[in-house]
């Protein structure tokens, strides 16, 4: 069975939407962080689909760049989450009320 390329794009858009929605509604820093990863993976799926339909290898190569960036973001992000957790024993962003104006 041949699945049309458009479906992959729709799935990617949905994944991206789920990630963006989760980021805006969830209150745990870790879940928000996972949502960013979900968005980046949706981007990867989009790149691969377009690369496949256009028979262009550049789009597939882009995926590696996005993956490397996602991995780098994980290391930095988890470090920051741990630093905040050590101070407050919570990763909920609702408790971050030090800064307001």
């Amino acid at each position: 069975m041949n699945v049309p390329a458009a479906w992959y794009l729709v799935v990617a858009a949905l994944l991206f939407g789920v990630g963006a929605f989760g980021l805006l509604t969830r209150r745990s820093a870790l879940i928000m962080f996972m949502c960013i990863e979900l968005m980046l993976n949706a981007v990867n799926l989009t790149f691969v689909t377009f690369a496949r339909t256009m028979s262009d290898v550049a789009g597939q190569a882009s995926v590696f760049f996005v993956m490397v960036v996602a991995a780098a973001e994980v290391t930095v992000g988890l470090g920051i989450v741990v630093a905040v957790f050590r101070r407050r024993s919570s990763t909920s962003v609702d408790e971050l009320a030090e800064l307001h104006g």
Partner: protein
Amino acid sequence: MTVLVPSIHYLALLPIFIFFGAALVLMVASALSAKSFSLRLATSTTVLASVAVLVVNVAQWSYVAHHGATTTIAHALVFDDFSVVATAVIAASMLLSALVGHDWALRERVVGVDYHVLALAASAGAMVMVQANDLIVIFLGLEMLSLGLYVLVAFDRHRAASSEAALKYFLLGGFASAIFIYGAALVYGATGSTNVSSIAYFLGQNVLLRPGLLYAGGALLLIGFAFKVAAVPFHAWSPDVYQGAPTPVTGFMASIVKVGAFAALIRVLLSALGTQMDTWRPILWVLVALTSLLGASVALVQRDVKRLLAYSSINQAGFMLLGVWSANVRGVAGTLFYVMTYAPVVIATFAIVTVVGGVGDEHHALEHYRGLARRQPWLGAALTVLLLSQLGAPLTVGFYAKYSVLVAALDAGGGALALIALLSAAIAAYFYLRFALTLYEESDDDASHVAVPRASAVVITIGVIFTVLFGLWPGPLATWAQHATLLFLP
């Protein structure tokens, strides 16, 4: 099968190599040295690297003057006057910020080279951004810049606000990056390439029957940039992050992020999507109007100086966007001039905020500035000059910056928008002047004397001299900006 290695123009890449090399050398040297690495040595290395980049920029400038603008590494990077000037601004910002950071680290007893390593790596990322000719390369530069800054924002371990600001910045910054790269993916799908020149060529040759994909991609790219430059309505992170970050880092961020993001924004909007101008200009119109007005009016009610300067910086971003909106040579040159002159002014301003902040980096309420100019006339006068420049008062460099983007907007037929921007400048003038007048008010005598360390004093002096000198004589800077733009726009 043979592997084709693209030709690499090492002169174009030299600034990036110098900064990244300096970061690596510092990191390895500090890991290998038995006793703790001297902070003075780390700062000297950063300053030396920045001076080296500025020297290389001179060589690059004359190279481009003789050989014209080129691309390198399979058209992934551009080597033109625009990138050379922007790189020089980044190097100068790094130099000034390193000096302010040095005094701050001594005062707060921050040991180690990490601060300088991260700052150098982030600056290298900004340099990648200003040279990038490919959406993926812009993304990589953006991430190099942002990842370094996330950690720098969290650098003050004594204040809870610092790590809190870092988490907010990280989550929203990651969100913005994901939106940006999704935009790049959609543009790739619509045009078949992520290369700025190829996109421009494709859009010049073809008429898209169903441009929805391209529009969606372009809009997402624009949102990503709007987040990074803190344009309204994507500015919510900026006051919190400006307030929470260690003060020298705030100044550093305010300068290099704007340089990197605006250079890349100009390339994407004017080079890649130049044919779609009629579509993105109305969107940018709304962004400019909201950014300049909201930035200025919310700043009126701020009691914390760092938050106040954050909103002031949002207002300034509105003016920089105004130059991009104009989409003519004058506008782009105006934006470049604006960014060039804003960087040293904002770093010097935050240098003063750093020294007034005192041990613990906590005295940032407007109250602490009451009577500052009576106790310390020179420091007060310096801050007044820097504030007047951000206000756009005549005889300061900020005046010519505002003037050049406003004239460009009028040229482009944006009378209403220029009026809105002027109105926002008038509102902004109120809080800048109120801040400046606070410095000269009577105050109780027990307010303590602020210690100004030597390196910070140098930075503040450079900032003030720059403001006044180029305020009286903006010719050379304006010529560079003009020249850089002419070699860049088609």
